[in-house]
């Protein structure tokens, strides 16, 4: 059992603090400028064959981080694990911030900004995205209320919101997975495994980034954190990373088994001349195998620095997973008439096309991620988010 946790605001007057703010603000601004330029001059590599790129991938990426962070945060509330209470506020804050980043990804991605309100005004019950517009906004409200209940130290209300938030996080993230996986016209999208895989991936990426955030936050604010607690989080992280690897393997093998999809599957998994191949294998090697080994190997698995490295590696590679989810189904041509090769004379249909995200697209995603951390650094000074010290009783 942990001792009672005292949450204390950070001082925030050091040079280091302002330096971090300046760096994060710079990248956030760079993201906004990149977006403005992209919107004005079409500086992305998107085309009519690949209309969804990495800015779109930012939507499930940030929602994943949010859902994962929240599920972890709620562990203390739902399962009454007292020692996890120490980071429940940080994680809940990140959950709210990431969902804002996810909504901002949608804002960045859509073509008609001043039609955006239509997404809320009009509702299409058969559109999963339409349901998600409702889920995302309500999810943010639930996250905010959950955080508020924690600030007010209202135990029963916190527990209620923790349960509701976990349920909503699963709903929101399954819904996001379904946006892609219910796309029956594209064989490489269509999979019933995607929504549950999204949940697992959300927890691993949210947890991975949380471990690193906790470690660096406590280190920079000269506060004490029990390495065993990070180790515990690391073990949950490693276990679920293995589950994610298992699900990816099942999906790949199942798709490869279908003769109609086999050429596409071979192209995706075994063709090193295309970026898609690398997005998948980078995820497997650097996002799953190496982080898993770091945690289970005794010499690194107890060291918070290595645990943080494993978390960051995995969270970064989950972006690769999102790329892998969204792009292959677009670059590989659809078969319009079985048994016949099709080539369009006037468009790029029938051809394998390329999609290489430009620096302007990357900056938009990096800018949003920086924005989340900028909000956290500022909030740590204004709100009691971080515990004074987190130690376990002997």
């Amino acid at each position, binding site marked *: 059992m942990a001792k009672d946790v005292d949450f204390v605001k950070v001082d925030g007057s050091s040079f280091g603090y302002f330096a971090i703010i300046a760096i994060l603000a710079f990248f956030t601004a760079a993201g906004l400028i990149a977006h403005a330029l992209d919107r004005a001059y*079409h500086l992305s590599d*998107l*085309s*009519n*064959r690949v*209309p*969804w790129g990495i800015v779109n991938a930012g939507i499930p990426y940030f929602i994943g981080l949010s859902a994962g962070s929240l599920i972890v945060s709620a562990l203390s509330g739902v399962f009454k694990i007292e020692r996890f209470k120490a980071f429940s506020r940080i994680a809940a804050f990140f959950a709210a911030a990431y969902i804002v980043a996810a909504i901002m990804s*949608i804002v960045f*991605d*859509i*073509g*008609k*900004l001043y*039609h*955006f309100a*239509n*997404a809320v*005004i*009009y*509702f*299409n019950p*058969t*559109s*999963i*995205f*339409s349901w998600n*517009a409702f889920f995302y906004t309500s999810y943010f409200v639930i996250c905010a209320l959950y955080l508020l209940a924690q600030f007010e130290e209202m135990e029963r209300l916190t527990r209620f919101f923790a349960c509701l938030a976990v349920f909503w996080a699963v709903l929101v993230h399954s819904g996001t997975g379904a*946006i892609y996986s219910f*796309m*029956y*016209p*594209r064989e490489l*999208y269509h999979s019933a495994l995607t929504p549950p895989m999204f949940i697992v991936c959300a927890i691993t990426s949210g947890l991975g980034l949380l471990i690193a955030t906790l470690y660096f936050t406590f280190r920079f604010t000269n506060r004490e954190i029990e390495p065993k607690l990070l180790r515990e989080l690391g073990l949950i992280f490693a276990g679920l990373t293995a589950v994610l690897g298992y699900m990816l393997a099942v999906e790949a093998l199942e798709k490869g088994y279908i003769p109609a999809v086999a050429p596409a599957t071979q192209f995706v998994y075994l063709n090193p001349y295309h970026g898609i191949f690398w997005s998948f294998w980078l995820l497997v090697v650097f996002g799953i195998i190496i982080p898993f080994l770091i945690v289970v190997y005794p010499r690194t698995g107890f060291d918070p620095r290595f645990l943080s490295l494993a978390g960051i590696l995995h969270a970064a590679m989950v972006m690769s997973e999102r790329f892998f989810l969204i792009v292959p*189904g*677009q670059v590989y041509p*659809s*078969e*319009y*008439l079985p*048994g*016949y*090769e*099709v*080539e*369009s*004379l*006037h*468009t*790029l*249909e*029938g051809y394998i*096309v390329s999609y290489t995200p430009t620096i302007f697209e990357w900056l938009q995603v990096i800018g949003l991620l920086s924005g989340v951390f900028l909000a956290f650094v500022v909030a740590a000074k204004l709100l009691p988010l971080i515990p004074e010290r987190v130690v376990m009783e002997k």
Partner: protein
Amino acid sequence: MISRRRFLLLLGASAAMAMMPLQISAKSVKSEAKRRWAMVADIEKCTECMKELIQKTGNKEIKPPCVVACDKENNVPDFEEKAIDPQWIRIAKFKNKFGEEFYAPLLCNHCEHPPCAQVCLTQATFKRSDGIVEVDMHRCIGCRYCMIACPYGSRSYNFRDPREGLKEVNPKVVMRTKGVVEKCTFCVHRVDEAIEKGVEPEPACVEACRINGKNSLVFGDINDPNSKISKILRESIVIQLRSELGTDPHVYYLPKR
């Protein structure tokens, strides 16, 4: 504390706002429930037309009269970059196992169960009661979900302002802007105008094909048993693209006989 009067006012205003969308929806366009528009493309005639054109011009990517007419009629811009050039109708080359080549047009299939309308989060894409699938440009937020959902690659996104790629503008057709998705409408403006006048409608591509002397494209109402299209569908085996998806596309292909 909010007063009762103010509360009622707010409630009334909210209810009025909730009803607003119904009034400004493009769905209020007058349509005929009894009709079901569809198209048939004769692959043999299309192939003959394309082979002749390619031989004559030496251009393997030549746009046949149907495509040119569609572009002109519907203000479809012409950009050099193929990746972002919008196309409402385009010609595809089909090659069989023996290396034999066939040509046929690809366009919006105006499905009975259109996945694009199913996924559109604002209902900007919708199916009229006469089967024509349309996009309300004032509702479209440009999320491109419909492009991912369309099994036939029939949708184009306006990465650039279409006016930049137009030499002249047909005022009868709604002009799109940058940031929305567009596609073939079966020349809905012509259909509505013809119905009002009591004559048979003819989309621009079908008209061009007829004037060109090929008569490969046939457009009509499949609910009318006496229409030419009904006769073809009744008497022949026709192909629907990706019919296994259950979208029931309404552009049919008549195979080479």
